């Protein structure tokens, strides 16, 4: 079985983002970039499938600028076998990413595709579902557990108020949630080996995809600062306010 994993280069989760003073976007100059945490979980899951003997090959793919080859290498150091980088300008919209990935899937014919449920920069939570739609494949989003059986994968999903398990016919798309696994650390020898693993670079033109603009980013602003409210003098007053003014209890 072949598993395809998608990865995205994003700002490191430890770094506080700052909106540029001209409100055109956030400032990413010289900040630490990293593998999107949900993508890291996707890579880990695929590598575990390989270690368990369920998968024969793990292919990792990323869409974006040249710099995202660094994240492909990270995924290779974590255990993926080979990488594909689709080189584009800036950060393409989810639908365009999904269209590019769909072409890769058509070419690679994986049995299982694992993506992160969302990227921690755009917080869109779209690409996996869109890819599933374009390929007319079943989807198991927000996965906290995967079980492979003959020709199907059972995905336990984290849904509001509990868990839902669905059975998907393979090939299928799974998007990862936080509790699916805890990713390993890349070891030094594996980081060195990753430098020699194959990494193929393609352009949207190579894949025959013409990307289109669907949305315009008008501006990016810092969130409104929260204002202090009122001081209550007693627990009774607090309970009353919460019941009748705020209506939250």
């Amino acid at each position: 079985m072949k598993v395809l994993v998608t990865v995205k280069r994003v700002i490191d989760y430890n770094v506080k983002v700052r909106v540029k003073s001209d409100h055109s976007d956030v400032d990413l100059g010289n900040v630490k970039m990293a593998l999107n945490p949900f993508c890291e979980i996707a890579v880990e899951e695929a590598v575990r499938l390989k270690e368990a003997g369920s998968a024969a090959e793990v292919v990792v793919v990323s869409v974006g600028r040249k710099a995202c080859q660094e994240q492909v290498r990270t995924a290779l150091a974590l255990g993926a076998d080979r990488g594909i980088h689709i080189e584009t300008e800036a950060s393409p919209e989810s639908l365009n990413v999904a269209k590019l990935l769909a072409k890769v899937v058509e070419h690679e014919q994986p049995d299982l595709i694992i993506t992160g449920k969302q990227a921690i920069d755009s917080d869109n939570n779209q690409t996996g579902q869109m890819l599933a739609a374009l390929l007319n494949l079943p989807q198991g989003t927000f996965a906290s557990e995967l079980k492979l059986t003959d020709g199907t994968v059972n995905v336990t999903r984290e849904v509001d108020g509990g868990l839902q398990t669905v059975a998907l016919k393979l090939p299928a798309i799974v998007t990862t949630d936080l509790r699916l696994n805890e990713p390993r650390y890349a070891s030094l020898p594996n980081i060195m080996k990753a430098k020699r693993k194959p990494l193929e670079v393609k352009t949207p033109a190579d894949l025959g995809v013409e990307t289109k603009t669907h949305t315009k980013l008008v501006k990016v602003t810092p969130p409104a600062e929260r204002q202090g409210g009122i001081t209550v003098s007693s627990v009774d007053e607090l309970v009353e306010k919460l019941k009748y003014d705020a209506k939250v209890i």
Partner: protein
Amino acid sequence: MRESMEFDVVIVGAGPAGLSTACRLMQQANDAGQELSVCVVEKGSEVGAHILSGAVVEPRALNELFPDWKEMGAPLKTEVTEDRIYLLKDDQKSSKIPNFLVPKTMHNHGNYIASVGNLCRWLAEQAEQLGVEVFPGFPASYIIYGDDGQVAGIGTGDMGLDEEGNQKDTYMPGMDLLAKYTVFTEGCRGHLGKELIAKYQLNAGKDAQHYGIGIKELWDIDPAKHEPGLVLHGTGWPLSFKESEGGASGGFFLYHAEDNQVVVGLITDLNYDNPHLSPFDEFQRMKHHPLIADTLTGGKRVSYGARAITKGGYNALPKMSMPGALLLGCDAGTLNFSKIKGTHTAMKSGMVAAETLFEVLKISNEGGQNLTAYGDNFKDSWVYEELYTSRNFGPALHKYGTVIGSALNYIDQNIVSLPFTIHDNYPDYNQLKSANAYSPIDYQKPDGVLSFDKPSSVFLSNTNHEESQPCHLQLSDYSIPLGKNLIMFDEPAQRYCPAGVYEVIEGEKGSKQFQINSQNCLHCKTCDIKDPTQNITWVTPEGGGGPNYPNM
């Protein structure tokens, strides 16, 4: 049994010294068509993540290492256009020192205002292109010694241990990186450098090393107030230098960098004797001085960080070679304090090391030799000359105070070299006087506009450590913080730490507890330096932990 890998040269720390060593080694190897394996380990999550410096960079070493660095896109873009030096007299007044009275080491013509973090990011790219293996996120946590007592490499730290040191599911043992030669460039007060200095008695016959703590912020300012290339230095207020208030010396800097940004900082010498002094709060109140506030008002703070500097200079510079290893840059103490610059000297110390090492490796493939030739080569370089001629600068300030010391420095640096050497042999850690000797300093509450508290500052350093791991700030004796330091010095760690790592918490019924919030740690090493009983040992936390400084 831990796994191991072998290299010709292993370099500890991807700062200016380590990366210059790496680049120069590979340049020579590539020129000679010789195979050479060089690896750099770095504890930060990426190269540059733990680098914090002023900085006005003198490009002398870079000119030698990469003569066409401009075309290659090195991030030195803002040339210094104007130098101003001030004496802050009190919280309102200041006077500009006429140029002709300024020691010539403080003139910055031809230098660049730059982020040394970004310079290191660039140097690491060059190193990788030259064939160096650079491994960020892997701290060298211990030294491996060979059978003959020589340094034989380092071990990287284990990952995935919990607070008690038990293995978690993600446990990954560290690796032994064996090397013919190991180069230690950890920066000021490296924890392995400290071990080497003690083991090989590298500081025998030298003066005690001296340190300062530099606290720095990056600000976006009103474009109307921005003068790219303008450099301000000064001393005086708020660090009091009146005997009755404890003798703290130091100085501030304010540099106008590119993109409407300025960096502002304060270096406080760590030989201060008033245990109530808080370098962090001194810096915060300093920003209210009109000279600085005028520039910052209307701006927004972007980043915050702190790092100790090694400033003992020539008199305190330890022997830099030992069997199988070299100790370079600020890990040894090559900073030129009369210029308040250490990047060019650190880089040069690394380049000389690379040349020394390559000569040795050409002749013998054995490794582990005592690299005494380094001492001679270093002595022949311009770094040595710089450090020697400025050897009196720091001690004069320490011994005679800012005013007379400055006068002596003026004579020494501009007119005629003093024919004698001033020594200052009192280690910084035993300078503190009893808390009763001074009254506590009344620091004003931060206003949230120009001045800030520690938590919101640490927040901007992007610092983090994996929550569950052994504490990397080790106490030799757990009874000292409350049993001794609290009683004698009102536990100064609460104040000298710029990240709020150390707290004395009052519990129920007045009971007290000493708490170490190691997750906040900025890796500045001040605690390791200033603790009066030398009870705190800074060791490497799990790889990738610590600050994530952008553009610092």
